[in-house]
């Protein structure tokens, strides 16, 4: 019995290690190469060989030389404002869908949910032309409209489901006390919905933090770039300096990985919310 268990655990660990290597090797390669000197890769030693003279130089160059912090600031700014707007707007809409009966409730809800499957590429050209026409092209704020609009359907869907699961007793009591729908929303639903809102905030933040297509089409000036777009630019700039590129990738991945390690369960829950409905 004990040897059985030993064999089973050994098998599990062996299998686990195989996927650990597949999932982890690229990250190891990325972090390790970032510490190498520029021409070390050309020396013919293996790519997994330890750096000969481990150096912080690549990281220093990225952090001080370019505008890494500016990109970081742009990303944080647009993500924070977008997520705040998404939450406020979808809370309002979800409240109507979850609690108020009217003839158009169901049709409108279905129309919005249909937005879940729409490929954003069909809107790319018109949104680009529209952004140019209103003079927002090539500004960080050009992203705000598409970022908020495209994440509303999923957010409204999730929050409506969440609100429907909140018992109605308190609102009924408030109604008898003469509270109208707006007061019910502010005093009762908002506080009770906060766990759902937190999960949704994480989901939207991760999605937008990594967004590329809209940023790629709507922004060109270097001072307006978000982090994913900036990585793409760096790659053009340093194309032959692999250690420098790897240090940029490491630095750009680090914020989310750190947040994930600190609050693993919450981040996981947030990221899965779109699938778990």
């Amino acid at each position, binding site marked *: 019995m004990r040897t059985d268990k030993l064999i089973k655990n050994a098998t*599990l660990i062996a299998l*686990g290690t195989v*996927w650990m290597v597949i*999932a982890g090797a690229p990250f190891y390669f990325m972090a390790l190469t970032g510490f190498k000197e520029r021409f070390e890769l050309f020396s013919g030693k293996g790519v997994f060989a330890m750096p000969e003279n481990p150096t912080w130089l690549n990281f220093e160059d990225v952090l001080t030389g370019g505008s890494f912090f500016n990109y970081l600031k742009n990303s944080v700014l647009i993500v924070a404002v977008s997520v705040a707007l998404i939450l406020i707007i979808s809370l309002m809409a979800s409240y109507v869908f979850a609690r108020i009966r009217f003839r158009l409730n169901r049709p409108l809800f279905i129309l919005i949910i249909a937005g879940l499957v729409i490929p954003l590429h069909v809107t790319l050209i018109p949104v680009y032309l529209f952004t140019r026409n209103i003079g927002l092209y090539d500004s960080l704020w050009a992203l705000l409209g598409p970022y908020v609009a*495209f994440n509303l359907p999923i957010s409204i869907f999730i929050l409506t489901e969440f609100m429907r699961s909140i018992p109605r007793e308190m609102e009924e009591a408030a109604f008898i006390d003469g509270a109208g729908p707006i*007061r019910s929303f502010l005093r009762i639903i908002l506080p009770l919905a906060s766990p759902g809102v937190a999960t949704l905030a994480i989901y939207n933040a991760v999605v937008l933090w990594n967004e590329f297509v809209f940023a790629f089409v709507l922004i060109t000036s270097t001072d307006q770039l978000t982090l*994913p777009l900036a990585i793409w630019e760096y790659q053009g700039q340093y194309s032959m300096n692999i250690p420098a590129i790897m240090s940029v990738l490491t630095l750009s991945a680090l914020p989310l*990985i750190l947040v994930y390690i600190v609050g693993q369960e919450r981040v996981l829950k947030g990221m899965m919310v779109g699938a778990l409905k």
Partner: protein
Amino acid sequence: MATVARQDFARSTPNRRLRPTETTWTIILFLLPTLVLLGVFVIWPIVSSFQLSLYDWDGLSPTREFIGLENWTRLRSDNIFWKAFRNNFTLVTLSLAIQMPLGVGLAVLLEQGEKLFIFKIFKTVYFFPMLMSSVAIGILFKYVYDPVFGIINPALEAAGLSSWTRSWLGDTDVALFSVIAVVCWQYTPFYMILYLAALRGIPTDLRDAAFIDGAGESRYYWSIALPQIQGTIRTAIVLSLIGSLKYFDLIWVMTEGGPSNASELMATYMYKKAFPSFDMGYGSTIASAMFIIVMLLSLVLMVLTRRFETEV
């Protein structure tokens, strides 16, 4: 607190008659931002895309020429578009065939190893690929696949398989598959966590009952767990299908659809036509075709899953 509530009560009682209007106003006010944003950034652009598909326009000149359905006939005989369409379906099929079983397998592995400390580390690292942006992953794998400085070829050589080494992204025969491998690497953890949550959601008495009846672990997973999580599997398949049709970032960063359209997808082809080549009319036609394909597929899936649900 109590006084506030009483004041509220006192203040609002005389207004009771007005409540229906307050409700109407709430509906209008609360839905307005959503409807305006979706109207401007989603619904109107879709209409506009179909409209633009009837024109020949570079996106810059003040005049655009109405050419009727010419763009659509061009699309019908455009070999590159149909190649991209086929590539999209290869991506869909392989994504499903690789990610779903692998996701279930890893979820079972994590559930089995739950009590071992090292699995905490495994689980944490397994999810890392989902945390990086597709752009970063694309760039990283461009170097992983690099024939000289990457890690795949040296690893193959070390294993004595030098004949397998090749230019993974530069070879028209393998470029698409190299890219799909990265897509699977990136998304498998997502399905893994999804299935793990589903496995943990299975009532423990089902498991206990199975073991009392003499079922082993593998019998439990095959005969009890798998049927129990089939709802989740269905959701995952729908998500994966629809997601694969919209795929863009990673392919754009790694190959830009090349070499010679070998890894072209509908989205990359649409982007190429509309932006670098300034053919907004034809770009809109491809975008509209993509929209039709995705919507049709979604409808089919909806009908299929519904029928499936009533049968099972």
